[in-house]
């Protein structure tokens, strides 16, 4: 079932990949601000807590069947053909989300940084880079994230520092805390914030199955989720403190609006163009991982090494990200209203929970067999 040249990533790489994956586009898009307003940071904390439960489910499934990835487990649990059908659905889902994440970023680019450049060109360039990287394999992607993550974190910290020095932060913006009660907060939390970065971790079930130290894999995944949850929440806190709840709710890319406020000695200012590229690393990891997840599915179905599919499927994902929506408003509307409910919830929650339930029942039965002994029946069969 596994090729001898199975690629494995180290624990640190797994940590970095999960972190960049979860923070990746969530930090840019600023989902959920419209309803939660100044309580967005609380919503992020709650979402992270619920997200942790999801991650625990994914990790638990993998621990129950060590050495098998999502696709293997699907066909182990549901049988050969239903498993394959589900695998096809997952592949389509992964490719689609990959295209969506890509569109998130390309829209950001052409709105903020390269207004005269056509969307197609920007997309093509990005997807070609993704194709190259995924072709090199998951190990290389892991090492690349390891190289870039210090820059990522440094920039997040630097922005805070700049904002503090520039006296842009006013904590009064956070008041009133829970002014409208828990209702708007919880409304944002599920399904939007839970599914958007945390539930998407389902695609990592493909790479987390093959790490160098499977024993530490669950802990790493949870720690990475906690870290990205705190970064996202802290980040929401920062956005609200600088811009105020209403501004955050109205802004398309709140992070950029925040960075635009930075001005130190009339020398360090208008850093938003720079920040876009730092955030690009996260987006890049996210697009690549979803893309890789889909490719691994094709490998699982066809038994052909995934590298054969990289170029055609990559171009397809790029094309898909362009035709997915006529404009940014449509894209966001789909993202808020259709995708979470019809795609995220079944693929991220319902199927994994089912998987876990079946696996647990199986294990329970096996244990019972062990305890009470079916030796007599077994011998009869022989």
């Amino acid at each position: 079932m596994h090729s001898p040249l199975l690629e494995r990533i180290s624990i640190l790489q797994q940590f970095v990949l999960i972190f960049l994956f979860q923070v990746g586009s969530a930090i840019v898009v600023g989902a959920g601000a419209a309803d939660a307003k100044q309580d967005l940071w609380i919503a992020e904390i709650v979402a992270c807590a619920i997200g942790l439960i999801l991650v625990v489910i994914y990790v638990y499934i993998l621990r129950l069947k060590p050495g098998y990835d999502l696709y293997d487990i699907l066909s182990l649990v549901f049988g050969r053909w239903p498993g394959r059908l589900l695998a096809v659905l997952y592949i389509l889902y992964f490719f689609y989300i990959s295209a969506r994440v890509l569109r998130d970023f390309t829209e950001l680019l052409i709105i903020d940084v390269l207004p005269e450049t056509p969307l197609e060109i920007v997309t093509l360039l990005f997807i070609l880079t993704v194709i190259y990287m995924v072709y090199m394999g998951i190990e290389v992607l892991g090492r690349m994230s390891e190289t870039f993550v210090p820059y990522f974190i440094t920039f997040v910290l630097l922005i805070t520092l700049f904002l503090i020095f520039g006296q842009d932060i006013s904590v009064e913006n956070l008041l009133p805390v829970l002014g409208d009660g828990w209702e708007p907060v919880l409304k944002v939390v599920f399904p939007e914030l839970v599914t958007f970065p945390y539930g998407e971790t389902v695609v990592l079930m493909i790479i987390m199955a093959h790490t160098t130290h499977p024993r530490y894999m669950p802990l790493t995944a949870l720690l990475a989720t906690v870290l990205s949850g705190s970064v996202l929440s802290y980040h929401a806190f920062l956005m609200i403190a600088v811009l105020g709840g209403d501004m955050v709710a109205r802004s398309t890319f709140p992070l950029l609006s925040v960075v635009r406020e930075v001005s130190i000695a009339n020398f360090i200012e208008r850093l938003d163009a720079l920040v876009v590229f730092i955030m690009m690393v996260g987006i890049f990891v996210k697009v690549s991982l979803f893309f890789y997840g889909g490719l691994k599915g094709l490998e699982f179905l066809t038994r052909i090494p995934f590298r054969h599919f990289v170029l055609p499927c990559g171009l397809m994902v790029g094309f898909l990200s362009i035709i997915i929506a006529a404009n940014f408003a449509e894209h966001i509307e789909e993202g808020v209203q259709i995708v979470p409910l019809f795609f995220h919830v079944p693929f991220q929650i319902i199927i994994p929970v089912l998987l876990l339930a079946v696996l647990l029942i199986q294990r329970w039965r096996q244990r019972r067999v062990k305890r009470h002994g079916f030796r007599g029946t077994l011998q009869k069969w022989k």
Partner: protein
Amino acid sequence: MGSGERYRSGSELPLTGNLDECREEMTELFGETKDLRMEDLQIGQKQAMLLYLLTITDAQLLTERVLQPIGRLPVEQSVASVDEFEQLCAKMLGGSAHVILHTNQDAVQKILEGFSVIVMEGVSAAVAIFTEGGGKRGIQEPTTQTIVKGPKDGFVEDLRTNLSLLRKRIRNHKLRIETFTIGTDTGTNVCLIYMKGIANEGIVEEARKRLQDIRTNAVFETGNIEEFIADKTITPFPTVYSTERPDAVSAHLVSGKAAIVVDGTPFVITLPTVFNDFMIAPEDYYQSFMMGSFLRLIRYLSFMFALMLPSLYVSVITYHHELIPTPLLISVISQREGVPFPAVVEAFLMEVTFEILREAGVRMPRAVGGTISIVGGLVIGQAAVEAGIISNTMVIVVALTAISSFVAPYYIFSISSRLLRFGLIVLGGVFGLYGVFLGLMVMVGHLCGLRSFGVPYLAPIAPFIMKDQKDIFIRLPVWASKLRPQMLKPDSAVKQQESESPSPPPVYPSERRGKRKSKGDQP
């Protein structure tokens, strides 16, 4: 001497002990070549023949090691069998590195390596005595990697001298030297050197295998075998480190690397090599660790400059004006006012000009070197600006880039930044910062995918190895790092277990009181 499998001339036949036959065979192989001497000798009662190549033989050595011992033999000495011959050789030539040969082929090989070969009538064996001589350069200071403080000797073209430089630095029985003969036309001696028990056995085995698998006709320089043994040749980054400095090679050897010395070149390669090796100068270890660390950071910065500065300038000036503070922007734009080209073209013009200047400077005879600086610096630089073709800022950018690219302690490494710079300029000119950053990502991805003898090229950074960080971006004091580089997976990981800071251990109050009582000499 090791494996000469590929280099084979002469018949596989054993030596017969017939002098005429031997002479015929040699004449057939070497033809009418002037420098092959076949001299008749009388050893005791027996007729013998001495064969050597005059051009690569040291006359004094020949006299001392061959002719004088033979002259001292008693006249009645007679040899009939191979065993007796071997005994005689051991007695007569003891201490002068002689080898007993049994086939014609070996004899030819030894003659070509500078040995003198004696064949004896009626004995089906021969003896080779090392008498190599010929033109040699004395040990001098290396020209490519100069140093202010530290050892000044450099490798030379002679293999044995180079090996002796290493042996003298590492007086350890674990130092192993293996010889290979490579090149069907040149039959060059190539040595693989490593520390047994320190270097990873797997890496050494891999190097050995790759050396044995080389199928080439000629080897003149380590560069010739570099391309055969490197993991990937389609990359602008060097995947083996080659240096003229014996101290650098010794340091690499004791840290668990292997080295390859090729006869005929002063450059020795060490492997496996990672990216960071090229940012480390031997001098870092010879001066204060603070200065060493600072210089290392400067080197990383300059590598970044050399790689990205022109492309960043081009993309910012073309697409992202808002990133430049307004007063600076105004002055830069006003300078560019009269310039008829877009920034990309301007950058390209200047970079290409600089590359031409640099190449001219390297190839030109020393005597006319000064002309280059005058023509290059004054005529092209200043005149271009005054004529309004190039903006001043661009000249500054190109100059800074150029100087940064010279900072690399390893000249060959700047090749990568020189080549990639042009690609990045194009990307910056067409897609702005977006293009530059994507280009960098591809570059980093490529670097992450590279391996040198199984060791990932970006090793202690990606994959991240905490234990190796004491000697990467900054160099901690020598006593602080107790382990050899873990990325090389050395067979013995610890290099200095008990090294401690030389500062005295903290004195606790109770102890101090005790001391004061006993010594009573403290105020």
